[in-house]
């Protein structure tokens, strides 16, 4: 029934998700939520990759392999991010990004 769901729909979806994630990284104060927004952006890119892979090069799996690598790198990135946030929390008892301001200009 949804046969004419085309490439553009996926691209628009992923662009919207990417924009939401980008807004979150810029506007949110909680460092964990910023990390979650970055994750959202990565997944938006994954949608783009898989959609292109399905519609542009249906006979190849390049885009999907790319997406798998992105997922793995994202996992490593988040693990690293949470570790650093924990180290910050030990120091200032807060993960509010606006309070992490020892150095400016």
């Amino acid at each position, binding site marked *: 029934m949804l046969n004419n769901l085309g490439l553009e729909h996926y691209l628009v979806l992923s662009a919207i998700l990417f924009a939401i994630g980008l807004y979150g990284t810029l506007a949110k104060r909680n460092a964990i939520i910023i990390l979650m927004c970055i994750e959202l952006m990565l997944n938006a890119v994954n949608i783009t990759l898989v959609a292109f892979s399905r519609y542009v090069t249906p006979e190849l799996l390049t885009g999907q392999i790319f997406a*798998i690598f992105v997922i793995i790198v994202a996992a490593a990135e988040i693990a690293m991010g949470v*570790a650093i946030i924990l180290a910050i929390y030990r120091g200032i008892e807060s993960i509010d990004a606006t309070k992490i301001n020892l150095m400016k200009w």
Partner: protein
Amino acid sequence: MIANYGYIGLFLIAVILFTLLMVTIPIALRFLRIVPDNPNPVKNSIFECGMETIGKTWVQFNFHYYFYVLIFLALDVLVIFLYPWAVSLRQLGISGLITILILITIIFVGYIYAWRKKVLEWK
């Protein structure tokens, strides 16, 4: 184009009707005095399975869970690579096997590291 969304609209209407129906039935039954109405504290308490909660739900989790998550994450990531390899085991042959063994060795070094750093012990 729009017609395709008609199905979604139908589903939406069906869902709303069904939900309303399910909410109305017990109210109607009580109104018709078919269901007895005698409340007590146990009946009025929040319906929840398991133990009653103690204290607030916004507690900090023990720091050590983080290491467990990391150890789990390593396996998780390993599995993502193992599945595609396992599916095309025969085509990839011996070079694929060697690659996977290298990957497992790297993860294994990670586990040795975790073990020597006493992450696996609960202090």
